[in-house]
Structures are given as structure tokens and as C-alpha cells.
């Protein structure tokens, strides 16, 4: 079902544009042109956050952290197997998808662990990545309480995800 959503939306949009007599091709090109400048502007920020995450992973600090934090997570009802995913999720999108695929391969796609992992992925975002990229083009230097609030929400979401997957 979901494969039809985007194509149908595009079709509707193009039809609507023709109906509204918008110069479709030229308008599309005008918008698409902005992509290169945008990507050039955000590249340094993406690079530095990826480098930081890469170093963290290679140094083995994530495993140490996961081991240290797993008793705390267990107390909150988060299984030990999901610790690494929960820790890396705020930093990297591609990295956490890699971990998710690993979890599928190890525990099977329909296991409790895998379903939890899916819900955690669905209800959270790469917080640090989003924050870095979003403010990269502004003068904002201090985000005040934005990151802590986002992290708390993510953690609550994770706990809730593990709970709901147990019931449903």
C-alpha cells in the first residue's frame, strides 16, 4: 500500500500545477538548483559529526558505554541487546540502520527484540545530526535546553516502545 503513496502524491501535484497554469518545468528546475548550494553549506557539519561518531565506534567506547549503562537500561525495561542501538541512534542515521539490520539477522525480524528496535527507530531521530544541520546556517551558538529535552523524550519513547511491544 505504502509504495503508492508518493507516486500518487506526485501525480496529484503535477496535475494540480498544470491546472493552476504553473510553469512546471522551470519552477522545478529553480527549486532543484538550490540543492547544490545547500549540500555544500552543510557538508562540513555532516563531516565533523560523522568523524566524531566514527572515532567513538573505532575506539570501542560505545561498547564500554553500552556495558556500563546496560544495568541502568535493564532497570528501565530496555533489553541489553538494544543498548548499542539506543546509544548510537541520536548520532547517526545510517549507523543505526546498520545496527537494526544486524539485530534482524541475529534475532529474526519477528522477535521481540527486533520489533522493539523497529519502534525505537520509528519514534526517535538522529538528534545531534538534526540539531547540527538545522542550525548550521544560522548564527545560533547556544541551543539552551533543546538537546536535553529531545534526549529525554527519546529515552521515554524507548522505554515506552519496549513496554508496548511486550503487550501488543
Amino acid at each position, binding site marked *: 500500500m*505504502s509504495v503508492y*503513496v508518493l507516486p500518487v*502524491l506526485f501525480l496529484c*501535484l503535477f496535475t*494540480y*500545477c498544470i491546472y*493552476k497554469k504553473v510553469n512546471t518545468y522551470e*519552477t*522545478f528546475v529553480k*527549486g*532543484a538548483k*538550490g*540543492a547544490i548550494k*545547500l*549540500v555544500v553549506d552543510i*557538508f562540513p557539519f*555532516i*563531516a565533523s559529526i*560523522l568523524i566524531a561518531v*566514527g*572515532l*567513538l565506534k573505532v*575506539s*570501542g*567506547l560505545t561498547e564500554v558505554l553500552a556495558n556500563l549503562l546496560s544495568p541502568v537500561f535493564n532497570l528501565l525495561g530496555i533489553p541489553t541487546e538494544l543498548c548499542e542501538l539506543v546509544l548510537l541512534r541520536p548520532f547517526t542515521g*545510517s549507523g543505526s540502520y546498520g545496527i537494526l*539490520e544486524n539485530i*534482524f539477522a541475529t534475532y529474526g*525480524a519477528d522477535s521481540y527484540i*527486533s*520489533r522493539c528496535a*523497529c*519502534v525505537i527507530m*520509528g*519514534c*526517535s*531521530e538522529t*538528534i545531534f545530526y*538534526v*540539531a547540527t*544541520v*538545522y542550525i548550521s*546556517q*544560522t*548564527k*545560533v551558538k*547556544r*541551543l539552551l*535546553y*533543546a*538537546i536535553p*529535552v*529531545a534526549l529525554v*523524550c*527519546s529515552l*521515554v*519513547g524507548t522505554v*515506552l*516502545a519496549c513496554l*508496548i511491544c511486550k503487550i501488543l
Partner: protein
Amino acid sequence: MMLASILVLLVTNPSAVLSEMISCSADALELCIELCAIYAIWLGIMELVDASGLAEKLARLLRPLIKKIFRVEDKETQKLIAMNVSANLLGIGNAATPMGIKSMKALDDGSGKATFAIIMLIVINATSIQLLPTTIIGLRQSAGSANPADIIFPTLLVTIFTTVLGISLVIFIDKILKKIKNKRKAVEVKK
């Protein structure tokens, strides 16, 4: 974070530091090229949405909500936020990002400090309210799940809850901070 990682690596595997940094930077470049392709499509589509007047309609629909949550009066900014939020709802995060960056630019007051609306936008994007987690369902399907879509309902429950929690927390903290400020002002006036 970077410092701690490098310190550990200095002891365990010093040769890995630079090679890992370079390989990550290369990954970033690859990601950016991919993103450039994706953004080109979405920015083109968004331009069409804008030019056809659909963006204005969408913004009008969401305006009362945006006014209340973000406390933003500027019409153009409201439109950008409306597009960012609706792209998030549809689960197309890649389309949401360029709109988010544009909204941030419009919201920036140049003071260097995040305003209420900036914090709110980051928190809403970070709690990722989405109706259809398409990527995850796809991955699960290819991993051989019997019913890959059965995570939609729990995900929806959790994501709605965290988003509402995020919005309320931001409003709550903002209120407390204002109270503290007012008290300080009152004390200064008394002096």
C-alpha cells in the same frame, strides 16, 4: 567526545585515528552527494508546491496550530514550518530537512541564542512524528518478516506520545525560565 575517543585510541590503536577520520569524511562526502540528489528532487517538488499555491493552503490549514505552538507571526516563516512539519508527518525526513534549514534561517534573530521557536522546531523534528515509517517497514520486509507492518500501530502510539511530551516540556521549561527572569527583575527593581 572526540577527545575521549582519540585518547583511548592513542593507547589501543594509534594508527587507526587518521585513517578512521579520513574514511568517515569520505563517507560524509558520499552521503552529501546522495543528499544532493535527494534534495534536488524535494526542493524542486517543494518549489512546485509553493508556486501552485498549495503551500499557502497548507499553511492556512496549519496556521492556528503553528501560531499556538511556535508563537510565530510571520506568514512566510509559518509556511516553511508548515511544510517541514507535513514532510515529517509523511515520513519523508529528507524532504523535511531543507525546509527545516530554511525555517531556522527565518527564525534566527542573530543573537546567537536559540529562540523559543527554534528550540520547539528542533524538539519536534527530533521526536520525529511520522505516520508511516516506510524505510523501517521496507528493511523488515527484506529481512523476512511475516508481517512487517505490525509495528505501525505501536510506533504511532509512541511517536505521538513523545511529540506531545516534547512540546509540553518546551512550553513548561520556557514558562519556568520566564518566571525566574521576572523574579530576578523584581529583585533588581526593589534594590
